[in-house]
């Protein structure tokens, strides 16, 4: 780790394409075995190195202080009420200089190391794949390089390939946090942010929102799959199957709708989807009855495809009774096939 510190600050800073850093560290599992950090899955090993170095320094000083206190209390505790102090020394200039200068040196080392490590994080290598992550209360949408299909709540990356993310928020602050990759960046509404890393271990990882963003902040989660080149080439994020639209609809439900709409009748911010479609006596799936407010007037309607489509694209038109005060995010640009898939998914709920 110390050697790293004095190497060329960062190759990537010069934008040399072939100098994408290789993982110089021990296999991640060994760090994980005893470590206090999650398994390292990117090239930002400097974070771990500096963390453990600082940790060791802290433990050293803590033990020093603790031992001195313990020893003093045992040796010099007051036995009689008039016992004077064993010494009345008020200062010791050399000692005070020492304990001013030594910490100063140590923290300057820490700064230099942290600075070097963050340079790596700042400079995106040329040839990194350009992804885009859009944060929105309370889900993530990912766009892939030169690919029209987006994924919601799940992300696929290829192992060993640097990935650069353009971050965009359409409402409030969020933060793009992948503990295993050691990256975090706030997603600031109104302007783009950038973050990059190079995954070096296959596996599944957490992507959290780390900046408080409202009610379902803690549910703003995405699963990140780091896969090999073969798997990645299959474009696993494109899961749409025209033969089984309900499956795609379910995935959209999980990504876009589940934070406000339950399937089992539990009241959330929005109305539950239970009973949207029901089975009639013959077992055929038909629309259920709903009380809605249209322009403030309450009426009962029979659910049909048109109502669902309208509710997705323009939720303010008909407000479900009991939820008329809650605003739903509109999805005017959701592709028709996906809306269709969601409706198919709703129909599978009939009779459950």
């Amino acid at each position, binding site marked *: 780790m110390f050697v790293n510190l004095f190497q060329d600050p960062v190759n990537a800073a010069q934008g040399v394409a072939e100098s994408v850093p290789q993982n110089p560290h021990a296999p991640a599992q060994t760090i994980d075995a005893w470590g206090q950090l999650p398994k390292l899955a990117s090239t930002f090993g400097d974070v771990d190195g500096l963390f453990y170095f600082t940790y060791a320094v802290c433990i050293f000083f803590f033990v020093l202080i603790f031992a001195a206190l313990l020893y003093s209390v045992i040796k010099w505790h007051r036995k009689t009420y008039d016992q004077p102090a064993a010494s009345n020394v008020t200062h010791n200039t050399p000692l005070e200089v020492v304990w001013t200068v030594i910490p100063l040196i140590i923290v300057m080392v820490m700064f230099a190391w942290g600075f070097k490590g963050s340079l790596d994080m700042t400079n995106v290598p040329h040839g990194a794949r350009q992804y885009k992550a859009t944060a929105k209360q309370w889900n993530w949408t990912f766009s892939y390089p030169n690919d029209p299909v987006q994924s919601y709540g799940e992300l696929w990356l290829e192992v060993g390939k640097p990935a650069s993310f353009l971050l965009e928020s*359409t409402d409030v602050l969020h933060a793009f946090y992948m503990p295993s990759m050691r990256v975090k960046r706030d997603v600031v*509404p109104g*302007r783009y942010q*950038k*973050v990059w890393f190079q995954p070096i271990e296959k596996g599944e990882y957490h992507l959290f929102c780390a900046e408080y963003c409202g009610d379902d902040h803690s549910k703003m989660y995405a699963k990140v799959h780091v896969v090999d080149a073969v798997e990645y080439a299959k474009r696993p994020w494109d899961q749409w199957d025209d033969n089984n639209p309900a499956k795609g609809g379910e995935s959209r439900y999980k990504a876009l709708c589940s934070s406000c709409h339950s399937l089992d009748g539990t009241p959330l911010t929005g109305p539950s989807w239970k009973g949207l479609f029901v089975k009639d006596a013959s077992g055929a799936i038909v629309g259920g009855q709903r009380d809605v407010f249209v322009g403030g007037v309450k009426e009962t309607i029979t659910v049909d495809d048109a109502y669902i489509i309208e509710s997705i694209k323009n939720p303010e038109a008909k407000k479900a009774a009991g939820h008329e005060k809650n605003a739903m995010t509109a999805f005017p640009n959701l592709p028709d096939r996906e809306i269709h898939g969601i409706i198919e998914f709703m129909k599978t709920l009939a009779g459950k």
Partner: protein
Amino acid sequence: MSASNDNAGHGHTASGHDAHGHGELQMGHHHVSSSAMFLNVLIALLILTAITVGASRIDFGSANLLIAMAIASVKASLVIAFFMHVKWDTAINKIVFLSSFLFLSLLFIFTLADQATRRMDDQALTTKTPVDKQWVHPSTLAEQKQ
């Protein structure tokens, strides 16, 4: 009064100083400025105001803001030194008031430096992105109509 305090020098009180007549020693060594000086300061301030206005009519490019701020600082210094009597005030009062400007400058320096260096920065892009519930300025609507 104790000898240790900042105002120790003023510890001796009125007796023997009545000759000054204004009794300012009741309140510490207070300087009573002359009316003429106040009038001069006022005239200087008014002239500087005219200069500010005049300078703003001429285009110095980005230096205009700097010039305006420089003149304003001179005016402020006049008000502080003479109208506010800081010139004759105790050291601690001077330090207190001037340090407020010092600490304020920290807020300015770091905040503005962050903003200014962002455009040189790959990570903190300054490119504007749309925000949900897009608000379109009425003038842009007018612009689109044209």
